[in-house]
């Protein structure tokens, strides 16, 4: 299915990442957003509030992020494609509803423009320290998808991808921007609507009598319904059976929780999104994501100028973590260098996936600004030594 032209601002624009993300939501077909102001993410909903009345849809500014993140899900069950936007402290408040979206398999998008933390931290300055929170922040076991754009263009493109994946797998999708990418202005090309592929919501074709709310298809994902269509379905955050009814048994729990993770398996390795270069002859590979990937690029060029054989692997899907790719690379190189704007988060995943086959060197940074490329270069030099 192609994008609804009403939401698509076809043309060449000069936009920052936050604004580009907003255009991505509109192109993806989002017609509902619930938000709460928080730096450095507010521009996304500010633009949505400005754009949506002439596109046809609703923006509502809620009383807090708890409300925003569940109002969005109400809208999804009402039939809309919907999202919410936040940053650190607001993301912390939204954790409960990431769990609710996961267990009720509500397709929706959480945009997190990461800033320095913990707590109020650095409202206007970057970090990438919510990466583990995105995966593990809500209690219990569940699966989510997280994408990391590194430019305004990708903020647009990956927002559409994010909405599509949310529909395909019926999971909450996190768009993990950072303050740098959110506030960086670059050329953003928005294609014609018929050049934008949209995954429609897969509504059931079954009758209300036949339909069971959480009966999975072969791909382990159940069909959707929406309120008002006569299905009289029940949605609950309690552990539930295929009818959607609460069932407090070990069996139901086992079946439900496993499926919530298993349904993402096809995505984990086979369809992970990444950018790789110069892996063939690499002795060392820099694994990075978001804004840090662009800083790392300079370090890579400096290293190559010194004759070091260094490759790059940029995580675009951070979650599910593309472990097989990292395992394959680790088998061929001396070391993996992982710079990130936190004190060591995704580096643990790299380490786990490498399984000791290659040295893994983290380049932590507490945030507030980006790495000095020289620091990454030093780590690369150390790695080949």
């Amino acid at each position: 299915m192609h994008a609804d032209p009403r939401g698509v601002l076809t043309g060449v624009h000069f936009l920052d990442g936050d604004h580009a993300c907003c255009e991505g939501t509109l192109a993806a077909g989002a017609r509902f957003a619930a938000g709460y102001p928080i730096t450095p993410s507010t521009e996304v909903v500010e633009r949505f509030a400005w754009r949506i009345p002439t596109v046809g849809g609703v923006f509502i500014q809620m009383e807090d992020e708890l409300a925003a993140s569940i109002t969005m899900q109400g809208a999804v069950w009402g039939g809309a494609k919907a999202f919410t936007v936040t940053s650190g402290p607001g993301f912390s408040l939204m954790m409960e509803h990431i769990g609710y979206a996961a267990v009720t398999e509500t397709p929706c998008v959480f945009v997190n423009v990461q800033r320095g933390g913990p707590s109020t931290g650095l409202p206007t300055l970057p970090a990438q320290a919510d990466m583990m929170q995105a995966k593990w922040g809500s209690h219990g076991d569940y699966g989510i998808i997280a994408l990391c754009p590194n430019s305004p263009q990708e903020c647009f493109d990956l927002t559409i991808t994010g909405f599509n994946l949310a529909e395909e797998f019926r999971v909450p999708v996190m768009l993990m921007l950072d303050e740098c990418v959110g506030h960086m202005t670059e050329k953003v090309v928005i294609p014609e609507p018929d050049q934008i592929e949209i995954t429609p919501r897969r509504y059931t074709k079954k009758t209300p009598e036949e339909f069971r709310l959480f009966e999975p298809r072969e791909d382990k994902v159940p069909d959707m319904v929406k309120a008002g269509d006569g299905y009289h379905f029940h949605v609950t955050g309690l552990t539930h059976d295929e009818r959607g009814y609460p069932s407090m048994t070990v069996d139901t729990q086992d079946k439900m929780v496993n499926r919530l993770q298993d349904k993402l398996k096809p995505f984990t390795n086979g369809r992970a999104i990444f950018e790789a270069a110069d892996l063939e002859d690499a002795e060392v590979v820099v694994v990075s994501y978001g804004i840090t990937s662009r800083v790392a690029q300079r370090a890579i060029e400096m290293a190559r100028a010194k004759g070091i054989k260094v490759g790059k692997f940029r995580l675009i899907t951070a979650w599910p973590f593309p472990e097989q790719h990292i395992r394959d690379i680790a088998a061929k190189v001396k070391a993996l260098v992982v710079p990130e704007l936190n004190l060591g988060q995704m580096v643990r995943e790299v380490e786990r996936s490498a399984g000791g086959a290659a040295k893994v060197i983290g380049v932590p940074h507490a945030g507030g600004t980006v790495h000095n490329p020289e620091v990454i270069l030093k780590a690369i030099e150390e790695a080949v030594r």
Partner: protein
Amino acid sequence: MRRLLSEIRIAGFGGQGVILAASVIGKAVAIFEGGYSTMTQSFGPEARGGSSSAQVILSSDPILYPYVTSPDILVVMSQEAYTRFTPQLKPGGILIMENELVQPGQVAAPEGVHVFGVPATRLAEELGRKVVLNIVMVGFFGAVTNLVDPDALRKAVEDSVPPAMQKLNLAAFDKGFQYGAELIHRMTEPETELVPAQEGDE
């Protein structure tokens, strides 16, 4: 035309339209010249009313590293910005300043820096609106650096302001550009000194 990577910093105080000036330059290259540009800005408590600065990188190729540490060109619209950022200029770079707001000479510029001044506030006031001083600066920048196609810059100005403000802003751009073009013309005359134009020069 193929351009080398150029790094620009524009700085002043909040409310002067520093970000808009940078955005116009970035947009001119990214949209109206078909090249690439990346604009970043310093956010922080100081972004509300205090000092303000924006960085633009211009290139013919996609820009990977998006930050400016040592700019080729510095445009300053306040004394504080001048003092703070002048030492970071690349040797042989270009310093563009608002004549009435900046008193030069307090810090040492790196070697070989070319200095150009423009009384942008006065020129803007002549148009009846002091607020367009940023666009006067953009026009002047266009003329003295010859880095961006003037037509592209003009289109970017038009594209960056509300319709009701287009005429005024284009006039501001033209005024700044003309001032710059005349300054360059005078400078190429053998007897003209390499100093900023002073009040009542003309």
